[in-house]
């Protein structure tokens, strides 16, 4: 018995090793454009990766069904893909990207987590053409990792994520106009999560710029479950607006504690990443009235169409993060077609450079919600809407487009 299990285990091991050892399959006769994706497919962030992958599969199938991508010599190539799990772990993310870069992948979409994106961009070449810099020369076009200011780490890093400072500045200004009687804001932040923590500064500055008085910030940690101390202080301060910079799990806990202690601000503002179905599944009733700027809502025919297909056929949700995958693939298609990518064996490094230059040249493209502008430091300025939680779903509160 024991011996059999050992044998089975050994067999499994060998089978597991095979793909690692076997040489990459020889390039097929048909030309392909190889686009890789990475996202968190395990752990608590798995939901994000699952959605991104669903949208990735959907858009690639659509492009391929429509004939694929036109290469420099006029032939049409299909997109070939892979999707790897980065586990929201820096070490694993780096090993995934190094592996992809050492194979014949043209460009990467991803990752999910900002704490993975940061070292990924860090191992890329900082300035193009710097011979003394041995960083990877591999374009990455990020869909989800949203912590502000990351793409400037490397000229090979591109992102298409909502620009939080713009959105929050506008949101607080709009709130001030709509509710001139509201004066005070009290904030709450999940301190040990990079994105939430950097958004605290964004919210704070935006609220002050709009003329609100920020009464203070309460802090908690990602895995905390009890918030009576922090909410107790909010209760005493009686703020008009409560701004929460945290992900769904603690946001829900905080909202529940507010209800329990009878903290009833006139308005509540939340973090971009909370404008997802997770929050609704976790605490729909308590979130009622929560306002969040979001880079996606099914408000255009195209956005509706994509959201429907992804939900029905690919079992994923299109939200502010995963919607970017759709746009990224279409932008890449355009860039590949216009920058002379050859996709021949031997032109890989040149093709990667062409994609990089092409991406850097894009000044504007049509996103799901409308025109997306590109900035000098390789980030997007995306159209957005203000969403509000209503009857355990997200509704559009205001559409500034």
């Amino acid at each position, binding site marked *: 018995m024991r011996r059999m299990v050992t044998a089975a285990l050994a067999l499994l091991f060998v089978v597991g090793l095979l*793909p*690692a050892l076997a040489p990459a399959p020889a390039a097929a006769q048909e030309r392909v454009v190889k686009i890789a994706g990475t996202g968190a497919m395990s752990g608590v962030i798995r939901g994000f990766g699952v959605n991104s992958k669903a949208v990735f599969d959907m858009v690639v199938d659509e492009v391929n069904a429509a004939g694929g991508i036109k290469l420099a010599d006029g032939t049409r190539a299909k997109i070939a893909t892979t999707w790897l799990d980065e586990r929201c772990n820096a070490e*694993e993310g780096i090993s995934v990207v*190094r592996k992809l870069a050492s194979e014949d992948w043209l460009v990467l979409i991803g990752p999910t987590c900002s704490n993975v994106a940061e070292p990924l961009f*860090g191992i890329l070449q900082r300035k193009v053409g710097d011979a003394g810099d041995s960083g990877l020369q591999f374009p990455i076009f990020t869909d989800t990792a949203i912590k502000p200011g990351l793409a400037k780490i490397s000229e090979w890093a591109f992102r298409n994520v909502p620009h939080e400072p713009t959105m929050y500045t506008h949101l607080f200004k709009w709130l001030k106009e709509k509710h001139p009687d509201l004066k005070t804001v009290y904030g709450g932040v999940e301190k*040990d999560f990079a994105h939430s923590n950097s958004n605290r500064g964004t919210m704070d500055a935006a609220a002050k710029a709009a003329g609100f008085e920020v009464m203070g910030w309460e802090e908690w940690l990602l895995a905390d479950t009890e918030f009576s101390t922090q909410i107790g202080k909010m209760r005493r301060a009686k703020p008009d607006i409560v701004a929460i910079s945290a992900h769904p799990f603690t946001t829900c806990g905080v909202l529940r504690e507010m209800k329990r202690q009878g903290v009833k601000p006139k308005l509540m503002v939340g973090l971009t990443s909370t404008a997802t179905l997770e929050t609704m599944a976790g605490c729909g009733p308590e979130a009622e009235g929560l306002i969040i700027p979001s880079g996606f809502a099914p408000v255009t025919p195209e956005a509706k169409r994509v959201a429907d297909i992804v939900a029905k056929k690919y079992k994923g949700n299109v939200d502010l993060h995963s919607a970017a995958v759709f746009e990224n693939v279409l932008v890449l298609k355009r860039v590949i077609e216009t920058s002379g990518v050859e996709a021949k064996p031997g032109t890989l490094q040149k093709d990667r450079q062409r994609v990089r230059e092409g991406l850097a040249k894009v000044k504007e493209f049509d996103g799901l919600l409308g025109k997306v502008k590109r900035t000098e430091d390789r980030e997007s300025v995306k159209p957005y809407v203000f969403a509000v939680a209503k009857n355990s779903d997200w509704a559009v509160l205001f559409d500034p487009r």
Partner: protein
Amino acid sequence: MSLLTLFGFRILLGLSAYVVILTGQISMAQAGFYALGAYTAATATAIWGWPIVPAILLGGLVGGLFGFLVGFPALRVRGLFLVIATLAFTEIVRMVFLNLKYTIRVGDRTIGPAAAEGFRGITYYYENGWSALQIMAFTWLFVLAVLAGFWLMDRSRAGAVLRAVGEDELAAASVGINLTAAKVAAMAAGGLVAGLAGALYAHYATYLSQEEFGALLATFAIAYPLVGGTGSVAGPIAGVLFFSLLIDGLRFLGDWRNLLFGVLIIAMMNLRPHGIIDVGLVRRLRALLHLRRERAYAGD
């Protein structure tokens, strides 16, 4: 190549837990030493502008110093109590780095530990044009040095002393072994090696964030030697290979990979409770070698 470099950090981390386990103690402090080594060495190159070798060594020394310091109070604590006490140390270190802010500006970039934002800009390797091969070779230089050191120690009196303490403290003390010295030395050596591993990792990753250095990393550090076996220095290596090949080799299973991960650990422990390369296997292998060489008595 990148995988080999990663193996390097993991093997060092596994070895650092291995030397402590030899004395019969389970320490969750390795993740803390690793973090200390990483932040120290990164600060040395990125902020103070040190060359790489002294920076890495400094990382190791700081890890070793803290290992030494933790070793003394931890002497009084045993078994599960020690696990918790050392876990407390790791969490304290993590919390220090959650609060530590010490940054400089270089051009338009902010470099250094920025509290919850993490430590950005540890780009020594790339700024100096190191290739992936060079990074790998540099990492393995340290791995091989530590391996050689531990292998020699294992065959010397020091190794026997550590194992004796691990087998039976009372018996060891009664034959005149200084328990305090043995345990503190093991802890300091473990801290040194974990510090080196962290220092190397920091430069490979270019970015550090405190959440990487928690209980999970500490668990893996002890999992490498426990699954791989504590029979010889090859044990932690076997453990690292086991885990790494599981993680990367089973990718083709897609979503099933992570489910299988836990199941395989359980299966492995049932099949080889003392690890892949345990004391028994080492003894048998040695016996086999002896048999060939001198056709001598092949006991057990």
